[in-house]
C-alpha cells in the first residue's frame, strides 16, 4: 500500500467516525418518527377495514367506504416510501396500482366481475392475480363507478371487497413486520445493503424526491396535461372525489420527512416550512374543485398550476440545499423511465 493511499484511507476512516454520531441521529429520527409510525398506521387501518368486511362487505355500504377511505389515507401518507419492504413481492404495486396509463384496472376488473373469477376465493390465489384488480384503486371503481355496479352478483362483489381488503391488510402487515424485524436495522447500522450512513441518507433523500415527483408530475401533472389538451379524466381518484385530499395528505407527509432531513438546520427548516405553508394555502384554494374537473377552464387550471410550481420549488430546495447538506446525490428511482 502506498503512502498516499494509506493517508487516504485514514482520512476516510476519520470522516466516517466523525460522521457517525450525527448520521445515526438523522436516520433514527426518520425511521422512528416518520417511517415506522406511517406504516403502523397503514397496518392498523387496513386491518380494521379487513375486519369490517367480515361482517359488512357491500360496495354500497357507507361503513365499508369510510373504512376504505381511512385506510387509503394511510397509504397516501406512505406512498413515497418506495424502497425496501414496500418493493418486496410487489407489495406497493398490489396495494396501489397507479398511475394506470393504459387503463388496465377497469379492463381487468370488468373481466373479473363478468367471469365471477374464483381467484377471489382464497388469499393465496388472490395474491397471484394481476395487480390491476388488487388494491385501493380497483375498489374505487367498484364503489364509485356505476358501470361496475351490476356486472356481478351482490355476493360476488362482496367477495371481491373482502379479498381486496384482506390482501391490503396482509401486504401492509408484511411491510411493517419487515421494517420492524430487519429493515430499520439495515438503515440504522449500514453494512451490506447500505454501506455507509451516506447511503442510508441517500435512500431517505430519494424517498422525498420520489414523493415530490409523484405529487408534481403525476397527482397534479396528469390531470393538467397541456393547456390545449387538459386531461380531467386522468385525475387520480376523481370518481370518489378524493383527488385534492390526496395532494394535501401527501404534502403533510412529505413536509414531515423534509423537516426531519433538514435536521435542525434552522434556516433550511424555515425555508421548507415557508414553501410547504404556501403549497397548503394554494391547495385550500382548490376546495370547490376537489376532483380537478376544472382543469379545462383557464381560471381553475391556474390554481392547480400554481400548486405544481410550489411542489417544484420544494424540489429545488431539496436539490440545492438539502442534498448538498446531506452530501448525497439525487440517485435513481423507479420513475426514471418514460
Amino acid at each position, binding site marked *: 500500500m502506498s503512502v*498516499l493511499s494509506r493517508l487516504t484511507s485514514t482520512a476516510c476512516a476519520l470522516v466516517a467516525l466523525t460522521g457517525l454520531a450525527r448520521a445515526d441521529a438523522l436516520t433514527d429520527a426518520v425511521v422512528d418518527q416518520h417511517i415506522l409510525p406511517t406504516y403502523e398506521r397503514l397496518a392498523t387501518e387496513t386491518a380494521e377495514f379487513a375486519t369490517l368486511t367480515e361482517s359488512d362487505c357491500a360496495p354500497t355500504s357507507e361503513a365499508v367506504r369510510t373504512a376504505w377511505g381511512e385506510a387509503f389515507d394511510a397509504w397516501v401518507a406512505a406512498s413515497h416510501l418506495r424502497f425496501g419492504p414496500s418493493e418486496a413481492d*410487489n407489495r406497493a*404495486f*398490489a396495494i396501489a*396500482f397507479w398511475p394506470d*396509463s*393504459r*387503463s*388496465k384496472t377497469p379492463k*381487468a376488473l370488468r373481466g373479473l366481475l363478468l367471469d365471477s373469477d374464483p381467484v377471489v376465493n382464497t388469499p393465496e390465489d388472490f395474491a*397471484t*392475480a*394481476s*395487480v*390491476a384488480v388488487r388494491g385501493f384503486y380497483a375498489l374505487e371503481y367498484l364503489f364509485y363507478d356505476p358501470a361496475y355496479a351490476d356486472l356481478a352478483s351482490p355476493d360476488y362483489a362482496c367477495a371481491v371487497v373482502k379479498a381486496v381488503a384482506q390482501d391490503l391488510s396482509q401486504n401492509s402487515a408484511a411491510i411493517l413486520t419487515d421494517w420492524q424485524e430487519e429493515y430499520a436495522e439495515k438503515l440504522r447500522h449500514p453494512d451490506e445493503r447500505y*454501506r455507509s450512513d*451516506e*447511503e442510508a441518507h*441517500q435512500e431517505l433523500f430519494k424517498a422525498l424526491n420520489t414523493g415530490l415527483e409523484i405529487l408534481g408530475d403525476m397527482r397534479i401533472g396528469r390531470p393538467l*396535461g*397541456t393547456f*390545449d*389538451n387538459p386531461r380531467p*379524466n*386522468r385525475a387520480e381518484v376523481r370518481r370518489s372525489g378524493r383527488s385534492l385530499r390526496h395532494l394535501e395528505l401527501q404534502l403533510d407527509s412529505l413536509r414531515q420527512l423534509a423537516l426531519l432531513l433538514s435536521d435542525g438546520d434552522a434556516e433550511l427548516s424555515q*425555508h421548507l416550512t*415557508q*414553501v410547504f405553508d404556501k403549497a397548503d394555502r394554494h391547495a385550500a384554494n382548490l376546495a370547490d374543485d376537489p376532483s380537478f374537473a376544472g382543469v379545462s377552464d383557464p381560471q381553475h387550471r391556474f390554481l392547480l398550476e400554481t400548486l405544481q410550481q410550489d411542489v417544484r*420549488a420544494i424540489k*429545488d*430546495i431539496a*436539490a*440545492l*440545499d438539502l*442534498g*448538498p447538506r446531506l452530501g*448525497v*446525490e*439525487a*440517485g*435513481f*428511482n*423507479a*420513475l*426514471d*423511465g*418514460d
Partner: protein
Amino acid sequence: MKTPLLTGAALLALTAGTTAAFAASKAEVLTNYANIAEAKYEDSLITAKALQAAVDALVAEPSAENLEAAKHAWLAARVPYQQTEVYRFGNAIVDDWEGKVNAWPLDEGLIDYVDASYGGATDENAAAALNVIANPEFSLSGKAIDASDITPELLGETLHEADGVEANVATGYHAIEFLLWGQDLNGTEHGAGDRAWTDYAAGDDCTNGNCDRRGAYLKAATDLLVSDLEWITAQWAEDGEARETVLSDENAGITTILTGMGSLSYGEQAGERMRLGLMLNDPEEEHDCFSDNTHNSHYYDGLGIQNVYLGEYVRVNGEVVSGPALADLVEAADAELNAELTGKLSTTMMKLGRIKTAAEAGFSYDQMLAQGSEAGEALVMGGVDALVDQTRSIERAVAVLDLSDVAIEGSDSLDNPTAVFQ
C-alpha cells in the same frame, strides 16, 4: 456563488492530476463513448436499410418468402438498435428524438384492422381504433384529415402521437413490427402475430382489404425509420451536436453516461418493461409483443449498458470499437467498486441470457408472464433483481467519481436561491 465552485473545480483538477498517470482521462472516455454511439447508430442505420430493401421487395412482389425476409431483416435491425438505448437517458438530443423510432406500447388499431377483442376508442385514446389503412379520410381532434396518400410526412407529422396521446404510435420499429407480424392473439400462450402475406397481395388475392394502402404504410414507415436514423447518426459524427454536447463538459459528460446506465437499468427496463408485465400478467406489456422478440430486446438493452461501461462494442460486421472506459475511471477511484459493478453487469447478462435462451428454446416471453407461471416469474424477476442491484453500484460510482457540482450547475436557482420562493 462563484468562489465555492472555483474551489470545487480546483480541487477536482488536483484530484485529476494525481490520478492522471494511472487512469484514462475523462476526455478520452467521452470520446470513446461518442465513438461507440456513432458505431451503434450507424449499425442501426445499415440494418434499417437492409430492412428497407426487404420491404421494397415485399411491396413490389408480395409473397410468403418476401414477408419472411422482411421479418428477418427487422429482427436483425433490432440487435444494434437496442444496444443504443443506454444513450437515451441523459442525452437530451437522443431522448427527444427516440419517440419517433421506438415508441411503445401502441394502440395498433390506429394503423390497421384489429381483432374484435381489441375494442374501440377508450377514455385515454379517442383514435385507438381509427384504422388509417382502411380510411383515406377521417377526422382527428375535430379536424378533417386527407390520408389518401400515405406518406412519411402524414405518419410523422399528423398521425404520430395524434391528439397528444402517446399510444398513438404511427412510426418506428413497433409500427413496422405490427405491419409485418400483425396482432399476437395467443395471449400468454406460445405464438407470435400471424399476419398472412396476402395482406399485401394484389387484386383478388388481397386479404383484409386495402392491401395497396397497407403496403404504402409499411413503406412510408420504413423510409421514415431510415431517415430518422440517418439524422441521429450524423449527430454523433465528428462535429455532430450529440458528440459536441457530451465532449463540451467533462463532468457533465461522465454524468450523462451514468444517468443513461442507471435510468435504463432501473426505472425503464427493470420497472416499466419487465416487472410491470409480470405483475399484470399481461402479454400486451411485452416490449416486442407482435414478433415475440421481447427476450432479445431485454438482452440487447442490458448488453448496451454493459458495453458502454466497459467501453467496447462489437459491430454488426464483427469489428470492435473500443477504448478508455468509464470502468477505468472507477477503477482508479475505487478498484473494489469497479470489480463490484463489472461483476453485477455480468450477472445481469447471465440472467437476461437465461430469459433469452429459454425463449429461443420455446418458452416464449409471453408464457413467462402467465398467471401462476412460477418458472417464468423466476426468470423475469432474476433479470429485474439483477438490474436493480447493478443500479445501486452505479449510484456508488456516481458518488466516488465526485461529479456533484454538475447537478448544481445549470440550475436556474443557483445564483439566486431566493428565486424559488417567488
